């Protein structure tokens, strides 16, 4: 049990001391995760909305596929991206392996299905309510999608949050394509894995506490935004 006491001590000391190495790791974690989630939103929101509104052959299959991909194992995504980016791979010339860019690519692939699947659900429900109105107005398919995405914007925050949580917490993908290189590709989760394997359990747990704290802060912030919007009764 003394490890837990020591862990809180370590965590506090690291935060209070503004440990530069720690700040670097936190900074990279945030940069990689937020960039990945933004990319996943840019792809996943319209994709989910089109799946919710559109009628085309293969739609049902695509819906099942994307729902299934929500549970994609990070290690498998990491491995696939590794094979694409390695020197012998098709994208090897870009020399992206073991860079933050590679980590962003891997996490985007991981998060996009989550955002697309949740968006589809939210938009499909709202489309049920808006469909007759928008069709009677003669709204074109594209403006229908835009209308629904805008009106569901606060509900869709939840989808983005789910993606954010997934990206912030995963270690498998960033470990494989990033390599946990100090000062280059080391993020919170890979640092925790490393310290654990070195036996520095208190430090690892201290980092873990900071990671959970950050996750709570980000969630609280976005939830607060949604709640204030609900108070305005737009939602």
């Amino acid at each position, binding site marked *: 049990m003394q490890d837990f006491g020591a862990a809180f001590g370590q965590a506090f000391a690291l935060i209070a001391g503004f440990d530069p190495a720690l700040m670097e790791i936190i900074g990279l974690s945030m940069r990689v995760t937020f960039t990945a989630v933004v990319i996943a939103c840019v792809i996943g929101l319209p994709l989910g909305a089109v799946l919710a509104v559109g009628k085309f052959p293969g739609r049902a299959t695509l819906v099942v596929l994307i729902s299934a991909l929500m549970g994609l194992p990070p290690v498998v995504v990491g491995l696939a991206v590794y094979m694409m980016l390695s020197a012998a791979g098709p994208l090897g010339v870009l020399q992206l392996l073991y860079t933050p860019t590679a980590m962003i690519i891997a996490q985007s692939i991981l998060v996009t299905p989550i955002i697309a699947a949740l968006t589809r659900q939210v938009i499909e429900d709202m489309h049920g309510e808006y469909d007759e*109105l*928008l069709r009677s*107005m*003669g709204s074109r398919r594209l403006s229908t999608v835009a209308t629904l995405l*805008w*009106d*569901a914007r606060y509900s869709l925050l939840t989808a983005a949050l789910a993606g954010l949580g997934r990206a912030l917490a995963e270690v498998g993908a960033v470990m494989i394509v990033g390599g946990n290189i100090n000062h280059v590709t080391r993020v919170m989760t890979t640092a925790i894995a490393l310290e654990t394997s070195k036996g520095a359990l208190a430090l690892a747990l201290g980092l873990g506490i900071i990671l959970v704290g950050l996750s709570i802060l980000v969630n609280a912030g976005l939830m607060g935004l949604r709640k204030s919007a609900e108070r305005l*009764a*737009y939602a």
Partner: protein
Amino acid sequence: MPETLSRNSHLSVIESGIEPAAVALQDVVFERQGKALVDGLNLTLSAHGTTVLMGPNGAGKSLTLRIMAGLITPGHGKIRWNGTETLPSQRVALVFQKPVLLRRSVRANLKHALKIYGVPRSEQGQRLEELLEMGHLKELADRPARVLSGGEQQRVALVRALAARPKLLLLDEPTASLDPQATAAIEDLIRTAAASGAKVLLVTHDRGQAQRLADEIVFLNHGRVTEVTSAAQFFDAPRSREGRTYLSGHLLF
């Protein structure tokens, strides 16, 4: 291939009496699960004035409006629009019993409609002010539309429909759940729309409302028109047995 109501279908000109017909439904049938809910409906509407569609629940009144609005495609029958070969969809506007407003302010709801209806950007601002004025919505313009009272919401929905400057305004029991004051406000807007030249087709169970607004009554039962009569005559002495039974308050079978 049966002719369906599509935006591109070929539409021919129909003449009926002196006044040109706005729209004519010919032998329209709509079935659901083998049951004909609209069963060989024939109806010709003149281009102006207010027609009230009455009839018991399940007579097919709402379905008829939805067919005219292009929301559902009848299994059989034809719909013909006068004048133009193709019907620009925005020239028909539909107001639902329960208003569906977007999760935005009143102003943004109307702006969205003007955009969908293809009003040029340079005219949108002025049209928006006119619409707010018309619906007495100026003070409510920046409020989220969904927190307004039922009557205010229906006013927004009706003004939004008028943003299309519709040739045909379809109203599906727009005041069914409103108090008398809110109902009067909606009726004023309907009169304004009719006076500005739109054809109004109103479904209502409110006999007083029908008497206040109707030029003509169309009575529907079991998906068929039983009579088309001037409002004055209908409330004095309906021609069809179904109309008489309905007005006397008996159940129709």
